[in-house]
């Protein structure tokens, strides 16, 4: 990356060989000793030991070659995800890569030949590997699958958000306050963030703020007035059809239809008015829907008795030849009237919408959504990081470059895509690489947020490592193999760092 893009002076490098006054080389040993001892003993040696250990069995006494790596990928493997889901994610990976490469070629950040090589050889290989990882199922494959999802989505989402925030706040008066707020979660621990988000994602709408909002929004658009659990009176005129009820026979105009229902929640019943049988009206289809259950006994079956309750707000459909011809809604006394129906033979149906249970929010931490939910918490934590780095890069773009493009008649969008983005590309690469490295090692958030029941569904490599080697799995051979794989995965980033540093030093 060009140093200018972030806008400050490059570090001065001490020139070699000019130090006549310089200290003797052996002096350096004293200064370096503590660091070298610590690094050699606690970082370098462990890397070698981990690789070596991964070739031994759980107890560490028997050499097993690559067995740990093999069993990592073959143990209790079944095909889990549906093909379509796996193919869907592979498609997303493909599309994102193609977009990135195209942008890279357009902006000149990537050479055309490199892009072609990546697109034609690298991408198909990644796609095939991703497909197998996604379609297979075992604790290890779930972990790898989730790591793939994390690595594909979390960095891109965070970078996109950071870019938007950085661009939008560029001219806002209270930008520093906004940035402070968004950046703040970077300072707190993943544990605290995890606790915060277990509260946010709580399943119960009366406790979890997210479900409270979701249920509130849902009920605003689709109020629930239902009577969940209600059933047609056995031996009555109604019979179940799907989740709704329908009359067994056609109803006759002029004779009010009696539609008895049972098993309505007792709490709900208390709030209902007493039933009043509908009066007969010649030639008109009408009727009554009520709870055919007299509290304290008594009362005849299939007849609205004075101490029985009316079901108000029930939607009634008139069905003829399988088609719904008209609808009516019961009033407080349980009565309904179809005022303008063409003559014919009708059955009456109480559709299932009357009896569906109330909407109770989303199971955020259930098997399907737990990983996206945790990624959401991670985005909350890291968006500020991307925003601040990209903001710094944005500020370092020389105004002249932008003005020149405008003078040449470029539209604002053109200026953004053709001038700003290419100049910003190095910063964005740094942000993405940093996030990918961090996301590969994600542990705390998953460990804290995922409830025991869905921990396996949310599994990631670092969690699987912990569970295998310290958290009960008791197989440090397999654990070492997982750690070695994690190490392998960060090697490209290591090479990236070293190369970048050497380039900078010239």
């Amino acid at each position, binding site marked *: *990356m060009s*140093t200018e893009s972030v806008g*400050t002076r490059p*570090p001065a*490098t*001490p020139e070699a060989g000019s130090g006549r006054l310089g*200290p003797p*080389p052996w*002096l*350096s040993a004293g*200064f*370096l000793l503590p*660091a070298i001892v610590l690094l050699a*003993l*606690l970082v370098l040696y*462990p*890397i070698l*030991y*981990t690789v070596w*250990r991964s070739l031994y069995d759980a107890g560490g006494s028997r050499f097993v070659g690559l067995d740990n790596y093999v069993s990592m990928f073959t143990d209790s493997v079944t095909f889990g995800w549906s093909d379509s889901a796996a193919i869907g994610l592979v498609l997303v990976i493909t599309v994102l890569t193609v977009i990135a490469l195209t942008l890279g070629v357009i902006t000149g950040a990537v050479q055309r030949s490199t892009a072609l090589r990546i697109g034609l050889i690298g991408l198909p290989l990644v796609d095939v590997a991703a497909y197998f990882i996604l379609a297979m199922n075992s604790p290890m494959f779930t972990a790898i699958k989730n790591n793939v999802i994390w690595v594909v989505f979390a960095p891109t989402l965070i970078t996109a958000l950071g870019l938007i*925030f950085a*661009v939008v706040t560029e001219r*806002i008066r209270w930008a*520093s306050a906004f940035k402070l707020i*968004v*950046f*703040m979660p970077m*300072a707190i*621990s993943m544990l*605290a963030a995890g*606790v915060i988000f277990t*509260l946010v994602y709580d399943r119960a709408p009366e*406790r*979890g*703020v997210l479900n409270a909002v979701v249920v509130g929004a849902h009920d605003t658009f689709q109020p629930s007035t239902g009577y969940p659990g209600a059933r047609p009176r056995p031996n009555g005129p109604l019979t179940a059809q799907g989740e709704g009820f329908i009359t067994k026979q056609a109803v006759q105009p002029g004779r009010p239809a009696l539609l008895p229902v049972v098993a309505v929640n007792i709490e709900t019943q208390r709030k209902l008015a007493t039933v009043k049988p509908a009066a007969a009206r010649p030639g008109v289809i009408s009727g009554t829907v009520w709870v055919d259950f007299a509290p304290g006994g008594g009362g005849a079956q299939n007849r609205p008795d004075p101490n029985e309750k009316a079901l108000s707000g029930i939607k009634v459909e008139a069905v003829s030849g399988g088609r719904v011809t008209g609808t009516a809604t019961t009033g407080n006394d349980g009565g309904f009237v179809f005022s303008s129906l063409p003559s014919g033979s009708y059955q009456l149906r109480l559709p299932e919408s009357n009896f569906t249970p109330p909407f109770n929010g989303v199971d955020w931490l259930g098997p399907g959504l737990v990983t996206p939910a945790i990624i959401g918490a991670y985005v909350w934590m890291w968006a500020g990081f991307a925003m*601040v*780095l990209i*903001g*710094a890069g*944005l*500020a370092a773009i020389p105004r002249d470059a932008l003005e020149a493009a405008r003078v040449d008649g470029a539209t*604002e969008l053109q*200026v953004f895509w053709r001038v700003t983005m290419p100049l910003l590309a190095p910063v964005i690469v*740094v942000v993405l690489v*940093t996030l990918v490295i961090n996301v*590969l090692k994600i*542990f*705390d958030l998953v460990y*804290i947020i995922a409830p025991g029941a869905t921990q396996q569904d949310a599994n990631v490599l670092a969690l699987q*490592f912990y569970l295998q*080697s310290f958290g009960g799995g008791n197989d440090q051979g397999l654990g070492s193999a997982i*750690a*070695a794989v994690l*190490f392998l995965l960060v090697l490209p980033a*290591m090479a990236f*760092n070293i190369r*970048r*540093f*050497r380039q*900078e030093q010239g």
Partner: protein
Amino acid sequence: MSNTATNAVTAPPGGGRLDGRNGLGGAPRRGVASRIINRVGGGVVQAGLVVIALFWLLPTFGLFIASLRSETDNSGSGWWQIFTAPAQLTFGNYSELLKNDTITSAFVNTVLITVPATILVVVVAALAAYAFAWIEFPGRDWLFLVVIGLLVVPVQVGFIPVARMFGDVGLFGTIPGVVLFHTAFGLPFAIFLLRNYFAGIPRDLLEAARMDGGTEWTIFMRVIMPLGGPAIASLTIFQFLWVWNDLLVALIFASRDSQPLTVAIQQQVRQFGSNIGVIAPGAFLSLIVPLIVFFAFQRYFVQGVMAGSVK
């Protein structure tokens, strides 16, 4: 990444500030954004940003309020009920927390782990960084490349071997063990950050000191350390927060007696699931210290994070 680090820490004063003129704040510029904003209408954008800011604040605010409500209130209803029932607010959870020996001793452990781990990293790294920046010795560049390579090593590769090693010498499950592990894995980044900053100190100053007959040690103490202040401040704050916030390292190397706050709270989450009367105030206690540090030393922290964009 490496150069963001150099830039962040060699930046002129204000470089890493969220409100600084260095583009992190609202220095007047005619950028793309300003024009888009003018066109779309500043009001809409501003309103959107307010919503986003609330969105970012609410989760933490929710935890704070939950920590101020009784267990019964929390299990029955959400924290937003306090807007209609402010009487629910109570310090009960916190006074219980102070009587909870597990939590209070874990808090002390957190301090006992964080402070030494931070000081050790800063001292050891500053010494090494000085050698890398200003003492010629054979293999220097090569050795520094190793340090850069170690920047991204995942802590996971250290756990199994170091746990075994600590077990052999009796450090496993002790505070010094946790401190040593944090120090070692904090070193590559610390050396990298300080070396880049030290290298930017004007050569003349060192030459002058050497002419005056200063030893390397006096130069290090009298010239490098004072001039390296900003980078050292960034590193101190970054490392402090890093260690304070750590869960995983302590989960593996600490025992019941040496566990820090994060582990103690995590145990509560695991064991009691719904023990929100302890979890909420505990989590808030563990995050309030980093937040204070963050607000007090915002600029250094941002610089540290920018430089740390490799860890």
